[in-house]
């Protein structure tokens, strides 16, 4: 790898990092605004035009709040928890293909940080690491509400990871690759995987809700029962990190869903557009399409949050173990039968 490539990768990493932070920041604003619209309200509108500076004010507030570490908390783990949470949230973006190869000047740039051939496995590894941030934070707080929230998070994530993995297996049987780049490339034009795997996608999105701890699976936080769940004892920017991690997770899982099932950067008629706009603008349109899909998914996350009440814990486990896993296995069997005999 020559120096120029390294510099380009570095720039790409910085850009993706910045974008995911900005998206997470404005997701908090979008969440409040969308919640307001769903409830016939206006939402934040005082800071800047339409309240657009609200996330900055919230961030400044988070930084200026007092840092509190409870006396009986384990200080090292207490700090390690949120750091780990945000770290694992950011890691996932490394393997997502953001677009086709783009030509800048005479150089062809890959819009993906790392094209590893086990991209899907990598995503799963990072996602399952995510539970440690919550678990460590909840444990280190030395508070029963935090611990309960952390235990809920751990068991919920572990349960739903199984059906998530199984729902992916059916997809991988059809595509025959674990590389996200190839997965995206295979869905060229309109051959999106959701058309071949509707049940798989349904299972995946339900599991994605559970993995990101979003309503109706937000039992780890569960304001009404557990005060704040695993982050009850957290204040200042450490709390901010947890909240941020949730929104980055949402962004990354939306990106993964778009890439795996909804064609990634592909859209109908993309070849025609590519020929007519050239090798620089064409792929950029693909990137915009991918982001449009991501934002639609983020909107869907929020839409569901303000519609559906939270599951009871036993219902959550019932759904995970008795419904989703059998369905996922049936999906694998069906996919196998259909791809062999049809």
């Amino acid at each position, binding site marked *: 790898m020559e120096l120029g490539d390294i510099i380009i990768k570095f720039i790409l990493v910085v850009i993706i990092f910045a974008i995911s932070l900005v998206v997470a920041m404005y997701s908090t604003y979008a969440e409040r605004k*969308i919640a*307001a*619209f*769903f*409830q*016939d*309200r*206006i939402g934040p*509108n005082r800071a800047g035009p339409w309240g657009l500076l609200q996330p900055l004010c919230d961030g400044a507030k988070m930084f200026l709040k007092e840092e509190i570490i409870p006396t009986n908390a384990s200080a090292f783990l207490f700090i390690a928890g949120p750091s780990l949470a945000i770290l694992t949230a950011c890691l996932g973006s490394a393997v997502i293909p953001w677009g086709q190869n783009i030509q800048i000047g005479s150089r062809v740039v890959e819009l993906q940080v790392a094209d590893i051939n086990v991209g899907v496995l990598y995503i799963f590894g990072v996602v399952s690491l995510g539970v440690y941030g919550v678990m460590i934070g909840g444990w280190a707080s030395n508070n029963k509400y935090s611990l309960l929230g952390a235990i809920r998070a751990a068991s919920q994530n572990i349960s739903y990871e199984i059906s998530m993995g199984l729902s992916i297996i059916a997809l991988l049987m059809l595509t025959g690759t674990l590389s996200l780049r190839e997965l995206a490339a295979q869905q060229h034009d309109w051959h999106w995987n959701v058309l071949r795997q509707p049940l798989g996608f349904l299972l995946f999105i339900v599991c994605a809700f559970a993995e990101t701890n979003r309503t109706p699976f937000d039992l780890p936080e569960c304001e009404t029962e557990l005060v704040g769940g695993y982050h009850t004892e957290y204040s200042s920017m450490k709390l901010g990190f947890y909240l941020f991690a949730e929104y980055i997770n949402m962004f990354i899982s939306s990106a993964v869903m778009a890439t795996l099932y909804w064609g990634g950067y592909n859209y109908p008629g993309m070849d025609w557009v590519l020929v007519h706009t050239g090798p620089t603008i064409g792929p950029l349109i693909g990137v915009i399409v991918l982001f449009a899909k991501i934002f639609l998914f983020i909107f869907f996350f929020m*839409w*569901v949050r*303000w*519609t*559906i009440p939270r599951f009871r814990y036993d219902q959550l486990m019932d759904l995970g173990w008795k419904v989703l896993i059998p369905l996922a296995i049936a999906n694998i069997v069906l996919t196998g039968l259909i791809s062999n005999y049809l």
Partner: protein
Amino acid sequence: MESLSNKRKLIESKPLNFWERAYLPAIISGLSITMKHFFRKPVTISYPEEKREFSENFRGMHSLKRDENGKERCTACGLCALSCPAEAITMTAAERQKGEEHLYREEKYAAVYEINMLRCIFCGLCEEACPKEAIYLDGDIVPADYLRKDFIYGKDKLVEAPLNQ
């Protein structure tokens, strides 16, 4: 057992059918309901900029009235203070001096007239009790403040602005 009243109602709890257990149709109909609200006009009134219209008989901040010549109507008879259930009104009476005829209508007037807005319950009994039609609760909402002492409104805040000025 014989029922004590005829209000008892038997509730039938049928087991959920397949579509109800599948949960998805219910979620979709819920999502469509929230989406309907998404495009509805917000009901919010941004208060300090926009105000909801008050009703005809809204009782807000008190004002001490002047008569058609701009003289203060209040004669410090004390009936308002007597009628006040919250004991929010106090006053000190004084005699009108020579040369003050253009200020006060009667020979006696209120030198000090104070209403404690934290005590006042805005019942309007003072305006009913007043024989001189001197006090009315026709003002705006009493504004917020930081100190308790600042809620005791004196004549500077209560008396109507003089005429032609």
